[in-house]
């Protein structure tokens, strides 16, 4: 993203006064680039249901729907908040020139024609940029649910997500992705969101975790995954969609997208192997959950770096991410912090690895706006910027997330009651059950009680004659 946006920044894009209208620039929209970024946007959207399954398979049966719903509803909440407010906060003209947050100039997508004008190098429609970026804003808060699984009240969770999108996601996206952002201007490199998405989400989760504490009974009570095929299905969808995430971040269908694509796949493959090899060495057997987790760790780690490293870099970053994240997942027991589905172990550790290793493996051999890292003669400057970026994003996200969680907890209560937690999210939060497999008991042990209370104009159906129309 950095690559192309840089040029845009240097031309006219973020100065509403000089910007020409879409119509005027229309000929420079390249339909091929548009086609790829539209497809990429759809791919990234699909990642959120994918994540829902990745997570839902790992929780106990009684929480399957609660987990799915927490991910699903983010598509609704952020989908609306983004076009109304947060897009503008993230990508609007910088507010006051501090590089901290954007103004509300593009709120409700007003004046959007003035932004992301096809300039010297940005060849996609402005709205395509809006929707592509939206999908990142959607999946990021959804990642938080992996840490906080099984114990948040649904309503309070929704409120938290909206606040978090506004007060955490939008500023950080501005810092890193927007040409006016202060990290962007220091040329900290983050191709597709290692800091903005992964480190940010993991710290968001940690912030909430410090408020809501561990699950009841953890770690003593066994909390086995209830449906690992779902977890692998989710991981498969994530891998698939991540090509849009990473290769789409070139904002064009050019050679750079191709490099990002091959790096993404290579690192993911290497991380998959890295994770299961470590498992094999430590436990004697490699696991399917490990294979799925390793792939995700690789995808996370290559996210910031896919446009800045070469194939060797991708291989090393991926392999290290797989192996190290595998080991890192055990740490939560040591710290006695119930990061339920290992968001810290995978997204924080993987995200940091990916961001920091750019400082070593970065090379501008195929990406002219990229800088060389330590191993390619660029000195430690890039490494310093990368570390600065990681620390600032992590620190800001953790602090503000913790404060937001405290506010919501004090006002509405973030955590479910012990009894609700025991019953499970599905029944306690949604009055639903995930599965009804008891082929025999189904339909006999339950009774349809009363009518359709949901309809204001429908009378109770007690009088309806069954089976007759």
């Amino acid at each position, binding site marked *: 993203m950095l690559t192309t946006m840089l040029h845009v920044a240097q031309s006219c894009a973020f100065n509403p006064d000089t910007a020409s209208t879409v119509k005027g620039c229309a000929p420079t929209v390249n339909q091929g680039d548009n086609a790829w970024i539209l497809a990429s946007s759809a791919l990234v959207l699909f990642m959120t249901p994918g994540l829902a399954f990745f997570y839902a398979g790992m929780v106990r049966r009684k929480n399957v729907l609660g987990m799915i719903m927490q991910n699903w509803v983010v598509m609704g909440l952020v989908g609306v908040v983004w076009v109304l407010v947060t897009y503008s906060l993230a990508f609007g003209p910088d507010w006051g020139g501090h590089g901290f947050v954007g103004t509300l100039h593009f709120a409700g997508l007003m004046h959007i024609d003035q932004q992301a004008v096809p300039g010297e190098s940005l060849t996609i429609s402005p709205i395509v940029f809006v929707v592509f970026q939206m999908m990142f804003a959607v999946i990021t808060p959804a990642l938080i649910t992996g840490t906080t699984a099984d114990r948040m009240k649904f309503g309070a969770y929704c409120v938290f997500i909206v606040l978090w999108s506004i007060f955490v996601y939008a500023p950080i996206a501005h810092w890193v992705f927007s040409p006016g952002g202060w990290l962007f201007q220091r040329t900290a490199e983050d191709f597709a969101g290692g800091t903005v998405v992964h480190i940010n989400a993991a710290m968001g989760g940690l912030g909430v975790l410090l408020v809501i504490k561990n699950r009841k009974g953890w770690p003593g009570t066994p909390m086995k995954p209830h449906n690992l095929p779902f977890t692998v299905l989710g991981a498969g969808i994530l891998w698939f969609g991540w090509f849009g995430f990473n290769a789409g971040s070139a904002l064009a269908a050019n050679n750079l997208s191709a490099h990002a694509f091959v790096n993404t796949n290579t690192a993911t493959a290497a991380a998959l192997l890295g994770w299961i090899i470590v498992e094999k060495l430590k436990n004697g057997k490699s696991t399917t959950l490990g294979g799925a987790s390793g792939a995700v760790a690789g995808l996370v780690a290559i996210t910031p770096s896919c446009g800045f490293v070469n194939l060797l870099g991708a291989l090393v970053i991926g392999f290290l991410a797989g192996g190290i994240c595998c080991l890192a997942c055990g740490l939560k027991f040591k710290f006695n912090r119930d990061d339920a589905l290992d968001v810290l172990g995978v997204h924080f550790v993987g995200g940091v690895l990916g961001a920091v290793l750019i400082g070593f493996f970065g090379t501008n051999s195929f990406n002219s706006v990229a800088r060389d890292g330590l191993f390619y003669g660029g000195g430690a400057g890039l490494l310093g910027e990368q570390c600065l970026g990681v620390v600032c994003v992590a620190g800001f996200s953790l602090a503000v997330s913790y404060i937001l969680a405290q506010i919501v907890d004090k006002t509405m209560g973030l955590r479910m009651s012990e009894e609700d937690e*025991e019953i499970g999210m599905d*029944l306690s939060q949604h*009055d*639903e*059950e995930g599965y009804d497999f008891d082929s025999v*008991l189904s339909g006999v*042990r*339950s*009774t*349809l*009680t*009363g009518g*359709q*209370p*949901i*309809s204001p104009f429908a009378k109770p159906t007690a009088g309806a004659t069954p089976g007759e129309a």
Partner: protein
Amino acid sequence: MRLVTAIIKPFKLDDVKAALQEHGITGLTVSEVQGFGRQKGHTEVYRGAEYTIEFTPKIRVEVVVDDDDAAGIVDVIAKVARTDKIGDGKIWTTYVDDVVRIRTGERGVEAL
């Protein structure tokens, strides 16, 4: 010998098993059942259609024991499985003629 059958709340299984082991029981058989009784079920709603689930999931524990042990075992279970809330379940005992351990062909108390 006696067959002790206990219908208990699922989350009590661990405690009951541990207590029985302490009491010297080396084997038991467990199954999933649906209980109907004073304890109310719950409600589920799907697109506005409301279902009442009247049965609640329970665990059935079965242990065959020597006649003399039966009363003690019943007491152990009754004590450990108790939460004082409706739906704690029942225990009953029935008379068993004969027991065989399949692996060895042993019979009676030897077979337990």
